[in-house]
């Protein structure tokens, strides 16, 4: 296992109380694998990725429990200095906004070189040479000229390519991509996803993809983790999740997306909204919106149940260890 997250809990202190943004999350990523965390706003998917990177702003946030084992070592026990040596070197991250994640006052060559000089002890010239190689790798035409460009001279898709070049420059073993294509147009999104998968095969990097777009998930992932209100509600391979979703939330999500390949008169609708994180319901967080809600769901929080070799957080599968529901 490259990365194992065990019982991760991250809290935020806000006006009016404490929000359990990530509330006991477990999952793992193997070498060369693409694992997606899907969820809507407030599900805790981004906080999970920031926790792994050690980038939770403290205060108001804090990882209060759990382990994040990267190649067997707990990242939560590392010192600030040790983490800095891992970040951008062994684990790197790309963000949603290619417009704001690049520093406007430095050339892109300088920004890619920075990590190389720091982590790989390269000289300025070596780093610049490597930067040009990286730009070529991510498909930027005439990289030796582009390396001297400033971010504003590039289009959105180009900037995301530069971000990927930057993230992969040191040859990380894990790449965390937080909504990498959300801000991009659909044809550019296709280019970037295609590029990420090609680079994954070429460099053997594992990818943790954070997204709300189930279409993207279906196209690129090996395994999927579905989150709702800070908890994992379902885990499985991409086929399992999309062919036969177990949790009513996953089921509802899949049904509520308009499809190009099918025609429905009315969309399936998950009623209501995500509960207020300061005022979470007593039982299952999804109970109020669930079309399969039962008495017990409103009283107790369901455990993560093993069912047909998969994991799902729903009472429906508790008493039916195997077989039909």
């Amino acid at each position: 296992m490259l990365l194992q997250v065990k019982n991760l809990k991250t809290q935020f202190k806000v006006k009016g109380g404490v929000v359990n943004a990530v509330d006991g999350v477990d999952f793992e990523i193997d070498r060369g694998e693409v694992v997606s965390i899907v969820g809507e706003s407030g599900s805790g998917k981004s906080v999970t990725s920031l926790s792994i990177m050690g980038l939770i702003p403290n205060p108001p946030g804090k990882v209060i429990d759990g382990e994040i084992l990267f190649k067997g070592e707990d990242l939560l026990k590392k010192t600030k200095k040790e983490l800095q040596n891992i970040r951008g070197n062994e684990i790197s991250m790309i963000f949603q906004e290619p417009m704001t994640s690049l520093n406007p006052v430095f050339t892109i060559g300088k920004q890619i070189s920075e990590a190389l000089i720091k982590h790989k002890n390269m000289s300025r010239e070596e780093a610049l040479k490597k930067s040009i190689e990286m730009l070529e790798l991510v498909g930027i035409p005439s990289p030796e000229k582009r390396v001297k460009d400033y971010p504003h001279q590039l289009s959105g898709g180009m900037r995301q390519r530069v971000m990927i070049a930057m993230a992969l420059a040191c040859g990380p073993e894990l790449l965390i991509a937080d909504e990498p294509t959300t801000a991009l147009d659909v044809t550019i999104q296709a280019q970037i996803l295609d590029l990420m998968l090609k680079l994954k095969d070429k460099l053997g990097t594992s990818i943790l993809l954070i997204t709300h777009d189930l279409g993207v998930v279906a196209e690129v992932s090996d395994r999927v983790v579905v989150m709702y209100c800070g908890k994992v509600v379902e885990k499985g391979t991409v086929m399992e999740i999309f062919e036969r979703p177990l949790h009513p939330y996953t089921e509802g999500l899949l049904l509520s997306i308009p499809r190009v390949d099918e025609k429905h008169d009315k969309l399936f609708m998950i009623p209501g909204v995500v509960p207020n994180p300061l005022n979470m319901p007593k039982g299952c967080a999804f109970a109020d919106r669930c079309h399969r809600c039962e008495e017990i769901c409103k009283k107790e929080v369901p455990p993560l149940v093993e069912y047909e070799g998969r994991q799902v957080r729903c009472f429906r599968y508790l008493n039916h260890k195997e077989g039909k529901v």
Partner: protein
Amino acid sequence: MEALLEVVNLKKYFPVESGFLKKSVEYVKAVDDVSFKIYRGETLGLVGESGCGKSTTGRMLVNLLKPTSGEVRFEGKDITKLKGAEEREFRKNIQIIFQDPYASLNPRMTVGDIIAEPIKINRLAKGEEVEKRVLKLLEYVGLASYHRNRYPHEFSGGQRQRVGIARALAVNPKLIVCDEPVSALDVSIQAQVLNLLDDLQKEFKLTYLFIAHGLNVVKHVSDRVGVMYLGKLVEIGDADSLYDNPLHPYTKALLSAIPVPDPAKKRERIILSGDVPSPLNPPEGCRFHTRCQSCMEICKKKEPELKDVGQNHRVACHLY
């Protein structure tokens, strides 16, 4: 079928001034000679990537932007030349729903006041009547009367979008321009808002111009769909025929790029190379030729006209 609105040779050029004393002026051709019709009671979808001019087109229809040239005929009358009282009278007929539910509501006004404002401005009701109408509108969009005195920040994105819809409905419009109404919302909330728009269309016999970049959403809501690229309408036709049988190479690429939430379906994807060229200096000839896989010599020189290929399907491409 009767056209409720007809757009004829619509153009919008934004001047970009540069140089000392703003001497040299170039133009961003955001919308460049676009014509189409919207029929009464239908939903026309308008898709395209950022910078293709779809939102600019929408804003010209609501008269938020004045066209550089061309006509927007609403029920036969050119609205771009209206002024003063006549313009205000007309505005009632076409309303707009915005993309960002966080930016489209005045944070200092209560939801009730936001919805009441268009009623008061257009003198559609007086005194008690205004309040009654506000409560009725809240009900139409699925909000409760106790929401009346709350402020926008107390609502979730989906609920704010409902408020925006109620505001648009307040003046009994005939046409609503929906400018990316669900792109900023979560998947589960998107479905709620799309279903609401569908219900309201049937209830009030509304006509929609639905602008979006999410092709799946557009397919779901639209009767007909137009595809824009760099300020030009490149293809327009019935939604089913356009999605099943796209003709323009750009439409083909666009459709093949949509990720489908079904891992079992691995499709052949057309990956376009490069980026959309700058609208400041659009390519000569067909604007798509720089990225087109079926580009011919003529495409680089002559701009293709929008040609009828039968069954309400029109396409601007030299291949046809």
